[in-house]
């Protein structure tokens, strides 16, 4: 086992920060999407379901490459941002957040959708008769009732963001403290033939992810029991 260098510690903390940010943002935008997918039977919602699932199946490097072009100064999003006097996103932490959100979206939306489907309309109807309006119902009924699903979504989104490599490699630029996350650091160690450091780092990553997953599984079983 190699030692944990200062640079590695920085990568570790950066990764946690990235995963936490992405998870929170994804929960916020994933819930309405998942609710729509769970309860609409319209054509657009079915297509949207497949679109949301698309990052599951795209090679991350491909996704990363197109993002690099799209978000760069010559891409249309990049141009739009420039016209709004915003910095372009590649090579920045913000850029990683955006790319990771895209990449991890299905991992958050799908468990949410699953629990939302399991909440019947009945509980919402009851809340209506007790005087709760739409937003109130969401906060006081849907959120607490789908707690296990929300935890699952958060854990999967978090763990998956921690593990992503291809997208980050393509648009990150390996900047210490900004975009040099753990998966990149591990790969660098491999390439440099520093297997001991690579192992240490990979192990710490696995431990964090596995702990998160295990917690989720135990929780899920409890909810079922």
């Amino acid at each position, binding site marked *: 086992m190699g030692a944990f260098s200062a640079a590695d510690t920085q990568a570790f903390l950066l990764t946690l920060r990235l995963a936490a940010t992405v998870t929170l943002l994804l929960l916020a935008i994933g819930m309405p999407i998942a609710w729509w997918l769970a309860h609409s039977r319209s054509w657009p919602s079915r297509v949207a379901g497949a679109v949301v699932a698309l990052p599951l199946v795209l090679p991350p490097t491909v996704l990363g490459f197109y993002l690099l072009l799209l978000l760069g100064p010559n891409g249309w999003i990049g141009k739009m941002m420039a016209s709004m006097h915003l910095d372009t996103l590649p090579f920045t932490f913000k850029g990683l957040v955006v790319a990771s959100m895209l990449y991890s979206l299905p991992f958050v939306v799908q468990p949410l959708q699953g629990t939302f489907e399991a909440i019947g309309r009945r*509980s919402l109807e*009851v809340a*209506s*008769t*007790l*005087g*709760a309006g739409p937003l109130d119902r969401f906060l*006081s009924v849907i959120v*607490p009732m789908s707690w296990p699903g929300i935890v699952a979504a958060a854990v999967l989104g978090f763990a998956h963001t921690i593990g992503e490599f291809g997208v980050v490699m393509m648009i990150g630029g390996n900047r210490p403290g900004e975009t040099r996350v753990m998966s990149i650091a591990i790969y660098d160690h491999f390439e440099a033939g520093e297997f001991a450091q690579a192992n240490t780092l990979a192990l710490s990553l696995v431990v964090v992810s596995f702990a998160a997953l295990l917690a989720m599984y135990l929780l899920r079983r409890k909810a079922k029991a």
Partner: protein
Amino acid sequence: MSAANDGLRAALSIRRGALSLDLDIALPAHGVTVLFGASGSGKTSCLRAIAGLEHSPGTVTFKDACWQDDARGLFVPTYQRRVGYVFQESSLFDHLTVAGNLDYGFRRAGRPSSIDAARWIDDFGVRPLLARRVAALSGGERQRVAIVRALMANPRLLLLDEPLSALDGSAKTRLLAELERLRTTLPIPLIYVSHSVEEVARLADHLVLLDGGRVVAQGPLQQTLARIDLPCALIETLGSVVEGKVSALHRNDNLMELAFAGGTLCLPHAEETVGQTLRCRIDARDVVIARDRATASSALNQIHCEVVAVIAADHPAQCLVQLDAHGTRLLARITWHSWHALGLAPGDAVWAQVKAVALGS
């Protein structure tokens, strides 16, 4: 109906799958209206439309408020109608305790001081349950909590959809007694859906009969029961209801006497007190008709009546005889054989015999 102006008026055209129900009802602003009909007759659909949980074309007004008027594109959402709703099956929030469930609507109603929450909690025996998780409640307890929860949300109209149907014997009996008590004290109108004649007899002030996709009759209870133009199966199911005052107790025999215009009924006594108003349902099949007063028989109740009418029952061997005992209608199911053997005809004076045990609720 004059009640229409200050109560609920609903004219709805409900179409759901196989169901096609044209509803036009006007309910009084006070008391209990029972919506009665067979399974599948559309009772639940009707209640849901009134609550605004379903949008069927038509109009709904309640007192001074218009809840739905499709001509004007008006549809007030459920949460603004202030209707309490107790669902057919239990519908408590699993993620809250009993106290949390009760408070849900109470808080949203602004915890008004006009609501005597403590009384309801005690009346329905919910107090010992307050700290429990919902999953640890029995069926009867769940429904009691659901009812108190609905009441505490300070509704202007309370809707109950067969609150007893999922309960077994003793839980049903107990909750029915509690509802009977509620009936006399509730300041708001209540619509109660049921297909149980017992519940009709004990709770209804006003009756709406649904059959074959339409309202076949509606009106005050006794008037509606007396109608002989209804389908015979319905008449027979409904039986007769005697309302009177407890006039005497025979504690030795655990019996009591119920005095009504047509005479006195003797029936098992539980905890009733003298002077109390009581209703008693008499099943048509429990009534024997005799020309003469019987002696030395275990049939305790013999009431002098006049034969009003006879109609065919659903079994070809039988008929339904409508009797009048000084204004109270009684119904007897007998065989045509007996009808002819006794030589009965409308206008005849007869004795209706009813066993006291048949009246034990």
